[in-house]
C-alpha cells in the first residue's frame, strides 16, 4: 500500500479535505470515503457515464480520475445539482417526463445534461443524443430522457439567469 495523500478540493461548493491512496479512483473516494454515493459505478472503465461528475467545468467519468488528481480543483457531483430553492429544472423535468425507471443511471445523465447546458443552452435533439452517447441507460430506450433534457432547456430558458 502506498502512502495516503492529503487532498484539498472544493466539492459542491464546500472545501473538503480527505486522505486518498494514489490508486484510489475519484469515484471510489466519493462513494466509500465521502459518502457521496450519488455517483454510481456501472463499469469502472469509462463506458457508461453512471459516475459522471463535473471537474473544473468539464464533464468526466469519476472512475477514470484518480482521487489525488483533484488536489486544489473544484468538483460538482449529483448531490450539488439541486439548489437551496429545490430541484434543478433538469431534475424536475426528469420526474415530469418519467425519464427514469430504475434510476441508477439517472444521476449520471443529470450531471451530463447540466454540463451540456453550461456549454450549449439550446441543444437540438441530435446534439442532446450526441452529448449523452457516453451515458448508458438500459431501461428507457432514451426517448423520455432526451425529451426531458430538451424540455429542461426550454424551462431554463424561461428562468432569469440569476435564479438558476
Amino acid at each position, binding site marked *: 500500500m*502506498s502512502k495516503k495523500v492529503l487532498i484539498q478540493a472544493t466539492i459542491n461548493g464546500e472545501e473538503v479535505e480527505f486522505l486518498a491512496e*494514489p490508486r484510489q479512483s475519484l469515484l471510489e473516494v466519493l462513494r466509500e470515503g465521502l459518502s457521496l454515493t450519488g455517483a454510481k459505478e456501472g463499469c469502472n472503465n469509462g463506458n457508461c457515464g453512471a459516475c459522471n461528475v463535473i471537474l473544473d467545468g468539464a464533464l468526466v467519468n469519476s472512475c*477514470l480520475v484518480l482521487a489525488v488528481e483533484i488536489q486544489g480543483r473544484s468538483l460538482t457531483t449529483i448531490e450539488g445539482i439541486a439548489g437551496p430553492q429545490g430541484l434543478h429544472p433538469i431534475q424536475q423535468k426528469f420526474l415530469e417526463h418519467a425519464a427514469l425507471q430504475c434510476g441508477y443511471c439517472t444521476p449520471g445523465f443529470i450531471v451530463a445534461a447540466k454540463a*451540456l447546458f453550461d456549454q450549449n443552452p439550446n441543444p437540438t435533439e441530435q446534439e442532446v443524443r450526441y452529448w449523452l*452517447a*457516453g451515458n448508458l441507460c438500459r431501461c428507457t430506450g432514451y426517448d423520455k430522457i432526451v425529451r426531458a433534457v430538451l424540455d429542461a432547456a426550454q424551462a431554463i430558458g424561461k428562468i432569469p439567469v440569476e435564479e438558476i
Partner: protein
Amino acid sequence: MQAFDYIAVRSISELCSLLSGQNGQIKLLSGGTDLLVQLREGRVKARLVIDVKYISEMAEIAYDPKQGLYLGATVSCHRVCQDPHIQAHYPGLVDAVALIGGIQIQNRASVGGNVCNASPAADAIPALIVHEAVCQVVGSKGQRQVPIESFCTAPGKTVLEAGEFLLSIQLPPPRQNFGAHYLRFIPRNEMDIAVVGAGAGVTLDNARERFVSVCLALGAVAPIPLYVGEAGAFLAGKRVSGEAIAEAALIAQAAAQPIDDLRGSIEQRKYLSAVLARRALEKAVQRARGET
C-alpha cells in the same frame, strides 16, 4: 489495482530528472482514459505515476500560418475539437478526435495519449499521418523528431525509449487546395473502437482538377496505423475521378493486413478498407474544393 506512487510535475526539467532518476515501471498520466483502465485490469504495471498535464509546454496549442500547429501532448480531445484554427486548417484531425469516446472521455483523453497508447485502431494517428504530423520526443539525450507514421512500432509499442516522452506533435502549415478527412466504421454510432478507420489528405492543383499529392492512412488493419504510400503515389498527378479514387482504394485494400478479432473479421476489414478509403478520399477532395 496495484499500489503506486503519484506525483504531479510542473516543468519539463522536473519530469526529465524524475525520469532519469528512476528506472522502470513509470507511467505518465495525462487524461488517464487508457492508462487507468490498463492499470486496473493489470495489463500494465506502474510503481510511479507521473501526472504531466500541469507542464505548460505540454498543455499548449499554438497556431501560426507559417509554422503550422503546435499541439502539446496533453491537450485534451475536447480542446482540439473546439480550437478554431484546428477546425479551419486541420479538418481530418477534428474528424478523428471528435470520434474518440463520449464527451466525458474527450474532456480527459489527450491526442498525445492516443498516440502513445499505440493502438492499431487509434483514431487520431491516421488523421495525423494525413496531416503529416511530426512527434517531438524529449529524453535525457535531448530532443528528436519522429514522423508520426514511424512513431508506433507494434500494438502498444512506440519508438519511445526509457526516459523519453512525447512533448508535442507538430503539424505543417496548411497548404492551398488541401482537404482532409478521417472516418471509421463502428457498428454503433458512438462508444466503439474502429473496425477500420481511414484518413485521406489531398492537395489538388489550382484548377482543383488534378491530385498534386495524396496521403492515405488506415487504422485497425495492421499492427500499427498504416500509411499507404502506394495509394498516394498512384494518385499523384492523376485527374480527380471516381475511377482513380476507386483504384486507389483497392490499393489501400491490398495493403491492409488485418487480423480476425472480436471487432471484425479479416474479410470484413479487407472489404471495409476499400469502402472507407474511397469515402475518405471523396470527402477530402470535396473539402479541397471547398465544397463542404
